[in-house]
């Protein structure tokens, strides 16, 4: 276990330094890139905070899609979990491509629901404002 400051505190400090000291001291393209860098610091902060529950949720949803994941073996450790999710997602992409999820019906609805939740989890990390604009009125 590391000493304070925490990763969150360090990244917050990095973002603030870029925003408050580098952005005002630069212009044009360099200023734009400094803003991008500050956003990256905040993105990494959000990712560290939410990655574990997001990976667990995504895997649980993939397992719930009938016939997508063979066997009952559960991946152990975060790397194995990432690999399992990547494989199941590649399999899902192939099935969509081959037309298995065309038309209407519960199977398509279940797959689209999973995809929407997965994309939502990506945006919670990369750009929360993007979904807030759509969910502001009606909630998630």
């Amino acid at each position, binding site marked *: 276990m590391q000493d304070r400051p925490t990763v969150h505190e360090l990244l917050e400090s990095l973002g603030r330094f870029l925003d408050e000291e580098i952005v005002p001291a630069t212009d044009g393209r360099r200023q734009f890139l400094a803003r991008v860098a500050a956003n990256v610091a905040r*993105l990494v902060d959000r990712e560290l905070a939410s990655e574990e529950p997001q990976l667990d949720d995504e895997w649980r949803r993939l397992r719930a899609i009938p016939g997508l994941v063979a066997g009952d073996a559960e991946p152990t450790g975060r790397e194995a979990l990432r690999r399992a999710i990547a494989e199941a997602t590649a399999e899902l992409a192939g099935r969509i491509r081959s037309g298995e999820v065309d038309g209407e019906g519960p199977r398509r609805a279940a797959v689209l629901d999973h995809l929407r939740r997965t994309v939502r989890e990506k945006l919670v990390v990369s750009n929360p404002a993007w979904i807030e*604009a759509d969910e502001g009125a009606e909630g998630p």
Partner: protein
Amino acid sequence: MKPEFIAERLVPFLEAETGASVRLDGLRSMTGGATREAFRLDAVVERPGRVAETHPLVLLVFRPGGQRAFGAREEFRLLEALGRVGAPVPRPFAAGEEALGRPFYLMERVPGEAIGRRIVREDRFAAAREVLPGQLARALAAIHRVPVEGDALDFLPGPAPGEPIAASEVDRLEQLYRAIAVEPHPVFEVTLRWLRSNLPASAPGAAPALVHGDFRIGNVLVDEQGLRAVLDWELAHRGDPLEDLGWICVRSWRFGNDRRTLGGIADREALFSAYEDAVGHGVDRAALRFWEIYGNLRWGVFTLVQVRGFLEGIVPSIELASIGRRTAETEWELLQLIEGRAR
């Protein structure tokens, strides 16, 4: 390319082009793009016994390599053709290659703002935003009138003779996606299936038109009175004119002003109805929806292209790196559009 080198080589080139004595003022680098460098300069043309003429110009120097459908001379010819139909484009001035050792052309430097965020948000463009939908529609109608048959613009990529336009665009986009994606994107797979089962029925024998290919806020010059010029022609091709109307509605070009579906400045319907007036016939809303969904997928695939440059270490820029995390924005919008939840 160094400004001193350009100054030294460009003067004799322009003197030969104009048959007069030429002096360059204020030559300096502008923000270019991935495929070319841009410079601003004033060319002062002096003829004996006449008042000197000053031409405010932009010089575009094409970088070697790069994935480009056509080059500087071709783009120059395209601007000439656009000027002839009255489309608002910078007047082309001269094109060459030998003088700078790389293909280049010069065009009129039109004053105005190109930065989308400012056009969408700043108070000084409030009146411009009122008139832009009509101006953009009329500009598109003019662009789409440019004759693309014959030899003059034969460099423009497009569908093979007789090939249905929308299907061929989806084919080309899918090929690009398959070639560059490093991870699966199930939402893009859903979208490709949707596009293939919702291809707009083009009129039998409908000929392709000139399509700008990147027509959006950010690629047009705007001043307080509205549209001044349409820029950035490197993605021009022969295709379905409605592709341009769908592209400008892609959510990523709204600069955070998401409720205004036309580039963050107005409702998309303001563009569509003004375009119908300008071309003199109705436009199928289902086809426009198809092209907006196609446009969101196309931008999503373009984000994959850009991040590939970072992942392969070709362009180690933080901008390209962070674009990799923007793909999800297009995925979200695609699901919203396909499931009928988008604005």
